[in-house]
């Protein structure tokens, strides 16, 4: 295809563009959501459709309510509001609900073992799951393993002759997320999958998620891991030192106390968790968000400790890499800007 190389890139700031578009499209639904929310949370009565997404108090207020005991019950008004708001189908409102997913998933999973009724949380999670099920239309999420013997826009073919160009297509398919079966209730063996898929949805929208939501996510990662990551604080640095530290602490730990909130981390849950965490840790602009980076770093250590404890190679490999990569981003390691012009007093013409 010979297209014009001068074609300007697609319009920027898609986020703001779509938000204004939908805001004008369904003002009635926005207003309903605001009205019902302010009846549940009186502190948020000053909300208007224009500041709904930007109101600074909204997140802290709602997430505090979500953390209260009994917050996830079936008759909980806030859960119902979250459910209804997500079902309204307005993209902005769905993003708004999605912000609270870390808190919902975090509180929910940590409370599951207590066998408290959490129908409210489950309804919200199932709504997110159903949304993904519909949008994926029974297809698994898969990616093709790039074949370097075939040329691409970024490289020329290497060496071997391109023998099989059509037949190889299917065999190199890797399934990232299996096709979804519809669920009307949370079956306990599918719980991790349902939460995992909701987190996959969160990940696809992560560019629109506020920092506070991501910070909460990182904190819950630590809770889920249920493992102290301190022993890996000086990961691969001073192993000798580590050894001595280990002997010292050996005396204290005999029988470990029960850690609250530790959850079984199967691949279905761990995979989206690691992707979100990687974004929090290494995503662009994270140097501006010191708090997020710190939290993500701690979460990363905890999850790495957990994966080492479980001797789970599928988790050790990515977590180990993330640990190493995060170290290069530590504030003390300076990065040189290769685009910087060399300073000189000589003017060359």
């Amino acid at each position, binding site marked *: 295809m010979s297209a014009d190389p001068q074609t300007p890139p697609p319009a920027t700031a898609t986020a703001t563009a779509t938000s204004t578009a939908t805001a004008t499209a369904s003002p009635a639904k926005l207003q309903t959501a605001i009205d019902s929310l302010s009846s549940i949370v009186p502190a948020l009565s000053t909300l208007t459709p224009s500041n709904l997404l930007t109101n600074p108090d909204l997140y802290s207020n709602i997430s505090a309510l979500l953390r209260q005991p009994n917050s996830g019950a079936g008759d909980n008004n806030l859960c119902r509001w979250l459910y209804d708001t997500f079902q309204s189908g307005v993209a902005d409102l769905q993003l708004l609900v999605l912000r609270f997913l870390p808190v919902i998933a975090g509180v929910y999973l940590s409370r599951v073992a207590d066998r408290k009724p959490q129908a409210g949380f489950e309804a919200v999670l199932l709504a997110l799951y159903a949304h993904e099920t519909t949008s994926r239309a029974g297809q698994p999420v898969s990616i093709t393993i790039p074949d370097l013997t075939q040329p691409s826009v970024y490289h020329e073919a290497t060496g071997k002759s391109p023998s099989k160009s059509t037949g190889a297509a299917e065999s190199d398919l890797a399934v990232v997320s299996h096709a979804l079966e519809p669920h009307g209730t949370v079956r306990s063996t599918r719980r991790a999958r349902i939460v995992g898929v909701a987190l996959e949805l969160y990940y696809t929208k992560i560019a629109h998620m506020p920092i506070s939501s991501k910070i909460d996510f990182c904190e819950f990662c630590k809770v889920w891991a249920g493992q102290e990551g301190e022993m890996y604080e000086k990961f691969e640095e001073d192993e000798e030192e580590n050894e001595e530290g280990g002997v010292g602490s050996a005396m204290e730990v005999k029988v470990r106390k029960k850690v609250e909130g530790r959850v*079984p981390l199967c691949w279905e849950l761990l995979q989206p968790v690691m992707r979100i965490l990687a974004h929090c840790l290494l995503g662009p602009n994270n140097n501006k968000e010191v708090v997020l980076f710190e939290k993500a770093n701690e979460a990363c250590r905890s999850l790495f400790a957990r994966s080492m404890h479980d001797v789970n190679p599928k988790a050790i490999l990515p977590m180990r890499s993330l640990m190493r990569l995060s170290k290069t981003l530590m504030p003390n390691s300076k990065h040189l800007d290769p685009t910087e012009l060399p300073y000189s007093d000589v003017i060359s013409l």
Partner: protein
Amino acid sequence: MLCACSGEQFKFEEAPQSPESLATRDFSASGLSSRTGDWESKFDETQVEDVESTLKETLSLNYEEARALLGRLEYQRGNFDAALKVFEGIDIRDLAPRMIRAIAERTKQRKPRSKGDNVLPNVMSMHSVSLLLEAILLKSKSLEELGGYTEAAKECRIIVDIVESALPKGMPEGIGEDCKLQEMFHKALGLLPNLWIKAGFLDEAVTAYRWALVKPWNLEPWRLACVQKDLATTLLYGGVEVNLPSQLQVNGLTTPMSGTEEAILLLLILSGKMALEEIDWDPEIMDHLTYSLSITGMFESLANNVEKVLPGVYDRAERWYFLALCYSAAGQNEVALNLLRKACASSEAKHRPYFPSFLFAAKLCSLYPNHAHEGIKFSQEAIDLAKHQNEHFLGQGQKFLGTCYGAAARISVLDSERIIFQRESLKFLNAAVALNGNNDPEVIFSLGLENAIQRNLNAAYDNLIMYSDMMAGSSIRGWQLLPLIVSAQQRFKDAETIVDFALDEAGSVDQLQLLRLKAILQITQKQPKQAIEIYRILLAVIESQKEHWLQAKAFWHEALTQQKLEMEVWQDLATIYADLSSFLDAKACVDKAQLIEFFSPRSWHLTGLLLESRTLHKEALVSFLVSLSIEPDYPPGIISAAKLLLKFGMQSLPIARSFLMNALRLDPTNHDAWFNLGRVSKMEGSLQQAADFFQAASELKLSAPVQKFE
């Protein structure tokens, strides 16, 4: 306009009159060459003066060039505001067409005559173009310094646009030798995406990276690699999907369909370059690649790439451990174990033992009964090391040790040895539970399984209940083992209830296994009709899902499991019909099973039983022996053969006895074997011994699960 910002804001200690006064002067925009005279006296700043005089002597300096030079001076001093003011006087949009023409014309000319620069009239010189490009670049960088990232990015894009329009086919060879055009352009290419990222426009940044990569811009290998790596990481961690524009989706070329795929492609290219030593080794590339291939589950590809890493990058033990992780994650545990054997072997004895290798090896061995003894060694070493450095892992080491002892007991030939192993197994598993049990449900499951196998049913039941509680019912393994334990307690109705609960909590794939368990429970309770009904449903579901599993290679594991289940269902049905003396139906079921897998010991065993029922003893024996030739350690085949031999009379008794003893060695809790052994003893006349055997058989039968614990 520009005069608004004058001297007092930017005072220089050495120069009372700041150089930006040049910028504030009102030049006529049309002024082409230097207008000397009246502005010379204004400058007492030595550096500027020097520059000016040199310029005047050697070249004619036009208005824009002068601003470009002056702006650079200000920039280098750190007066970004002032620099910006100076640069703003250059109307680049007006100049752009001329610059494009100049670049296009002069690069075209370059090839035949190397020094043809000055021949073209009315075309800007390359020096001039470079100078102007540099001015825009510095303007962009000044804006960046002042925090105007979006503006900076827009400025920077002008450079890219100009050069790209002039050179649509990429940078010609050798252009960088005598002018700064290429250098400026390369800097702009590198700067632009960074500016967009700082401005918060990731999609623009990705587009900018792609611009830099898809055309031959003569970037040095390291710079190209840098851009590739930056694009890959932006795509991997940015959290935005930026579709490849249609002009980059060329037929016949591999086209990545998602950001992750594109990132992996780039990282693979980079790792290929490192393998060929075209660029220096960069551990970050390997880490990004590891991360990206791991989260997409492509561990086999990852292993291949780690294999390609040049020697000397990792030390041996580290490399083996890394590879073992990859292969194990890809499901090739035997390969992983082989690598770990090397990593833990005596060749590494001089080095500090790498603890994770030992623990990992212990875990892998604990998964396979045939590696039990090796696993015991690895676990003990892991425990020893843990005591010294990683106390934290002590419980894990004990868990693997206990599991391996349990497996060792099962393959043990000597009775005395088996008892010791079983005791050790429980000892270490209990220790592990005491240490980690509060937080690690898996260790409780291991203890429960071992207890069940040793027929400590009450303890096993308690363990499993605790396990299910901790997992909040989310473990399918727990749901499968618990009803077996309850069935071993001969509480079949309860077992059935548990299976029903489990069916409510399971996903569709796991439900199939549970349905089979439910049917087996029905058989045990002598309700063949219900059992057959369940099997009918089960077969219908399998049939309906078959197409789905067979459609892609990615599901081969699931497809195999389904196939095995289908075969087992037919075999179960054959047993039911044989018990009901409906031999033709039974034969039909066995045939179905054999269509799926011809060499299944159980199918041959069932064929033998059917032949035996038709009193075709010789043929039956042949069938049993076929099943044993497929799987020599198949206790039901051994027992049936022994039973048949008993029918042949006294002379076969010693053979039958040895068969049965062998079966008991393989499966010490097999009540059928004990019972037949009793019969042998009775026929031989040792009644006391026979009574003992019968008693063992009856006791074992009362604690036998409907399916083997595993």
